[in-house]
């Protein structure tokens, strides 16, 4: 059970209609080569809001990760971008082409790998690639076959004999083959073993380095964070965070987690730490100068962000806090992105 302690220093987004910065950028940016632009994209399924007005600009030359828990709206956004789901409102353009009608013109500029993996089991791997690459450039099938062979896929076999991971690789090969500037990949690494995932991410990284625009989604941060230069975190159909991987890494480096003997102690410590983070004065023992921020409690663990990378002054103060029992464990600078997002945005990444 994860609970967050109320904290005067918490900076979780209020959960309004997306991030104003993203909206401004989307409004300002004209459609252009390699750009994915979504302006105010909204979609409801009955009473459920799948996408609140969603604004984003994704630029070429880097991998952008679209991250969030299951049902957060990632796949709906991707489907709206390529015209598979019609947005109730908003505008989309990809590679300078506006999304109109059923999105055929946009889909010519982009490859899309769906997250849900259901293939035609009666087709062979090669036939399936030909099916997926219909209306693509003539050389695409050859390239896809080469990629599939690199993965070791038996293209002469019927797809019904493929494992889940092999099917995923087949779809990936088809998504990577067409000569287009933009690739949108939904849950592309899901179900792959670590070595295949690594191979796949290397290819995605190389694509981005070659100047292509890559938008990939995952509900598992640890699977894709190593290739993403930028991370968009989505929850309940809204963009709750848009940060560079470097900024996230810096925050991660300053993050500290302390395990206590019980949740009660963790809460007591959180209250002290929150007080320590107050603007003036603060807790006389833990000290305001460390500017402890983003304090949360998860079970018997208290997590927070320090003002600097050096934890030693804070640890010395913590040792002198006599009303708190000795911590069971202290972790610093090693938090996963998953934990970080859970702490900062109050949602589970996996």
């Amino acid at each position: 059970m994860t609970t967050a302690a109320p904290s005067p220093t918490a900076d979780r987004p209020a959960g309004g209609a997306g991030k104003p910065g993203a909206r401004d950028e989307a409004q300002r940016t004209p459609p252009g080569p390699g750009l994915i632009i979504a302006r105010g994209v909204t979609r409801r399924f009955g009473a459920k809001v799948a996408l609140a007005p969603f604004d984003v600009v994704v630029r070429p030359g880097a991998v952008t990760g679209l991250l969030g828990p299951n049902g957060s709206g990632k796949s709906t956004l991707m489907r709206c971008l390529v015209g598979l789901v019609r947005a109730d409102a908003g505008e989309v353009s990809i590679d300078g082409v506006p999304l109109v009608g059923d999105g055929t013109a946009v889909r010519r500029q982009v490859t899309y790998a769906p997250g849900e993996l259901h293939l035609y089991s009666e087709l062979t791997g090669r036939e399936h690639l030909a099916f997926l690459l219909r209306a693509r450039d003539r050389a695409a099938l050859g390239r896809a076959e080469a990629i599939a062979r690199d993965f070791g896929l038996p293209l002469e076999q019927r797809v019904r004999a493929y494992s889940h991971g092999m099917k995923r690789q087949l779809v990936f090969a088809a998504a990577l083959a067409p000569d287009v500037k933009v690739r949108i990949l939904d849950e592309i690494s899901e179900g792959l073993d670590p070595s295949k995932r690594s191979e796949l991410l290397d290819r995605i990284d190389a694509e981005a380095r070659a100047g292509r625009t890559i938008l990939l989604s995952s509900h598992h941060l640890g699977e894709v964070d190593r290739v993403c230069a930028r991370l968009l975190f989505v929850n309940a159909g809204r963009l709750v965070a848009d940060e560079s991987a470097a900024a996230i890494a810096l925050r991660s480096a300053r993050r500290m987690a302390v395990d206590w003997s019980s949740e009660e102690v963790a809460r007591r410590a959180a209250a002290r730490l929150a007080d320590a983070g107050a603007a003036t004065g603060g807790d006389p023992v833990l000290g305001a100068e460390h500017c402890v921020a983003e304090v949360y409690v998860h079970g018997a663990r208290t997590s927070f962000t320090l003002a600097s990378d050096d934890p030693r002054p804070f640890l010395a103060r913590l040792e002198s806090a006599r009303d708190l029992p000795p911590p069971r464990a202290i972790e610093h600078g090693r938090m996963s992105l998953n934990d970080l997002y859970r702490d900062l945005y109050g949602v589970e990444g996996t």
Partner: protein
Amino acid sequence: MLRTLRGYTIYGVGLTIVLALMIGGAIYWWPSFAENVTKLKVFAAPMPMLGDMLNQIEQGGVSAYVVGQHYFKGGNTVGVGGAILFAAGAIAGEAHRGTMELWLGRPVSRARLLSERFFGGLLVTCLPVFVSSALIPWMLGWVDESMSFADLMRCSAHCSALLGAIFAVTFFWSAAASDPMRIIFVMLMFCVFQFAMYMVKTATDYSLFRVADIEVYMELVLRDRFDWRYVGPLLAVIALSYLGALRVFARRVP
């Protein structure tokens, strides 16, 4: 495309073979049937509609027997069943298998994808009727009988209009739904009900199959011309179902 072509070819060839075997067997037994038609009329006496059909065959001879066997029986049973089975899975089958996103995710317009399936399906629903009909003159040679090829083609076109209409209505539903089994069940039940109505003397004029029975086919043969009173509305149903399917499919969520 390859997958679709393969499926269409198997279906089309299969339907042609079944229809040809049915009419081949019927023609083979024609002499025996002609000899025993009086006894059969006694046997069919409790069912007035069956008696009427036997009367029509007795009066019309081998032509009435052929149109009854091939178009009324073969077309309205195997043909209709095949059209429903084929159309029900055309779009809803993709949703049911979970492959719709893959199918639609390519840079091909929805209108084109739907039209390929619609007109391809329409073709393989109707073509077997023509192909199997084209074999009838040769089959009639087995029993020293003959029938005009033009009459057979006219009857085939009429039969195809009905099969096309049933295919189109089922296809329209398929474009909007995700469960092909439900579509098949409801459409087959509807057709069985319509057939049951046809066999009831007082209800027969309200049955769908009244537009494609022995009497109607024999008029096509005897008058030597097409009857647009029946075919016109059936073609309108096909056109409206196609346009409706296009409209529904355009906004469909995979």
